[in-house]
């Protein structure tokens, strides 16, 4: 036994969390229960990992789930990231609306989808995983019911998500139509050498559907509006953990099932990378609101993560996990400071360096990591995904292009840092700070640096 306990635990804890909401209305009780649930989840996934470490890859449900060492390591890391997110944001999540316990419950249900995406071995599980991942998100996006922006974000996200589900299913069906099986292994053996048009269309449709989920351009237009409209306490969860999980699903499918026909889809992915990097970075430069800038920067980061899909090798699969963790921690750090401010424009950050040096320092470390400055983990994350693409030995042009785009991204990240340290504010920024949260932010920033110094911890 062991391996899929994470899925079971996340589902049960989600239900438990809903009962906690029934029993107690106090937000303090609910917060503690939420943090405890995620802590238990980290423990259970760690137990899973140790079991898998001993027994090797495990198959469940007639080969529908295959829990390997990489997948279970990813599960541990992603639940640890979710735990850090909950620790920092639990206070803010309960302030979003009235149904506090349900928000935590929905996040736990999302974790079920995350674990399914990292371990599926059958296209049915892929489909169900993506749906479990998405449907709670539609609700979370609209959780601030009184706010019309939140409602709009929710509706927009829902319409886009439902549309992409249709495309995903069509892709799965066409693949099935040409292979006669939903299993990843069977698809991989069936697809060798030249393939006909039917599965090709299926693969393209799957790329489009995943492009929606990971917000790769040209399927990115919903991202900025949705991330902007969603309550700021929820946005980091959507922009980091869910996105990274979608990437793991993307990679598992394209490396596992379509690895033998790499030649047929690599051009599409390469174009996707270039367009995503270009649109993400250039649009981010022109944003006035930091929250929108972060939304576009998440599109740009998705462009880098697509390199791991593009490069078909072992390094790529390791580097996507590293990239995911480093991007998640850095984004959480920036959002944690952003949520404290009343004004989300760049001016809102003015003089933060003087008035609240601790918040400014942690935000700076995280922004540096997002920009990919050495010593922080963001640098190595970018370095590893690009190395993976280099090992593939193809098309050095897009790697050069990616490095250029990373240079552009430094401009808009540094604009925030400049606002914090070199511009003085006319108004006094008032932030209610508690020591617990400050300690957590420092720990988060230290983790970002430590992962940069010791990348072997995640890769090894």
């Amino acid at each position: 036994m062991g391996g899929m306990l994470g899925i079971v635990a996340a589902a049960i804890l989600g239900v438990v969390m809903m009962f906690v909401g029934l029993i107690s209305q106090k937000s303090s009780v609910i917060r503690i229960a939420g943090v405890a649930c995620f802590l238990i989840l980290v423990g259970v996934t760690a137990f899973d990992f140790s079991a898998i470490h001993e027994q090797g890859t495990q198959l469940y449900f007639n080969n529908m789930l295959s829990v390997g060492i990489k997948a279970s390591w990813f599960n541990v890391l992603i639940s640890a990231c979710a735990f850090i997110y909950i620790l920092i944001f639990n206070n803010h999540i309960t302030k979003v609306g009235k149904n506090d316990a349900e928000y935590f419950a929905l996040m736990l249900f999302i974790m079920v989808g995350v674990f399914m995406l990292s371990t599926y071995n059958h296209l049915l599980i892929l489909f169900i995983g993506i749906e479990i991942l998405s449907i709670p998100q539609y609700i979370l996006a609209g959780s601030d019911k009184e706010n019309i922006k939140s409602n709009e974000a929710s509706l927009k996200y829902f319409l886009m998500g439902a549309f992409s589900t249709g495309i995903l299913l069509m892709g799965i069906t066409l693949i099935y139509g040409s292979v006669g099986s939903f299993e990843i292994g069977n698809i991989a053996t069936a697809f060798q050498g030249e393939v006909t048009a039917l599965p090709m269309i299926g693969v393209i449709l799957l790329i489009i559907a995943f492009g929606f989920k990971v917000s790769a351009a040209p399927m990115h237009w919903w991202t900025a509006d949705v991330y902007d409209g969603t309550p700021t306490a929820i946005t980091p969860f959507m922009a980091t953990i869910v996105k990274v999980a979608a990437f793991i699903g993307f990679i598992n499918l394209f490396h596992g099932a379509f690895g033998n026909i790499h030649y047929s889809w690599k051009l599409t992915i390469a174009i996707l990378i270039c367009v995503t990097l270009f649109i993400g970075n250039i649009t981010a430069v022109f944003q006035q609101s930091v929250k929108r800038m972060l939304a576009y920067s998440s599109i740009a980061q998705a462009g880098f993560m697509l390199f791991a899909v593009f490069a078909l090798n072992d390094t790529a699969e390791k580097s996507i996990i590293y990239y995911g963790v480093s991007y998640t921690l850095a984004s959480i750090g920036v959002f944690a400071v952003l949520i404290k401010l009343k004004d989300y424009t760049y001016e809102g950050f003015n003089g933060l360096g003087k008035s609240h040096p601790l918040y400014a320092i942690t935000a700076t470390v995280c922004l540096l990591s997002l920009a990919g400055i050495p010593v922080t983990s963001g640098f190595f994350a970018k370095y590893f995904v690009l190395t993976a693409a280099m090992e593939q030995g193809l098309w050095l042009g897009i790697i050069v292009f990616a490095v250029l785009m990373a240079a552009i991204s430094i401009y808009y990240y540094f604009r925030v840092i400049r606002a914090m340290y070199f511009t003085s504010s006319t108004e006094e920024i008032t932030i209610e700070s508690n020591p617990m949260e400050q300690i957590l932010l420092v720990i988060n920033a230290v983790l970002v640096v430590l992962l940069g110094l010791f990348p072997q911890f995640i890769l090894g």
Partner: protein
Amino acid sequence: MGVLMRRNAIVILMCVELMLNAVNLLLVAFSTLYGDSDAQIFVFFIMVVAAAEVSIGLAIIVLMYRKVQSVDINILNRLKN
């Protein structure tokens, strides 16, 4: 096509359902082609998930309707400013 052309959120939802039904039909057709019942089971899952998705979607549309008294998605453009 309906998803891209229509402006009414409920009609868009119906168009998405049409897409899913097309997939269901195709799956059943492939299932008879291969003499394999996997795809028919898949169809049941799609139906269940589609029902869940529609219930969430209609709830969101009702929420929106209460705010702006309309289900026209052109209103969504307000977020951009």
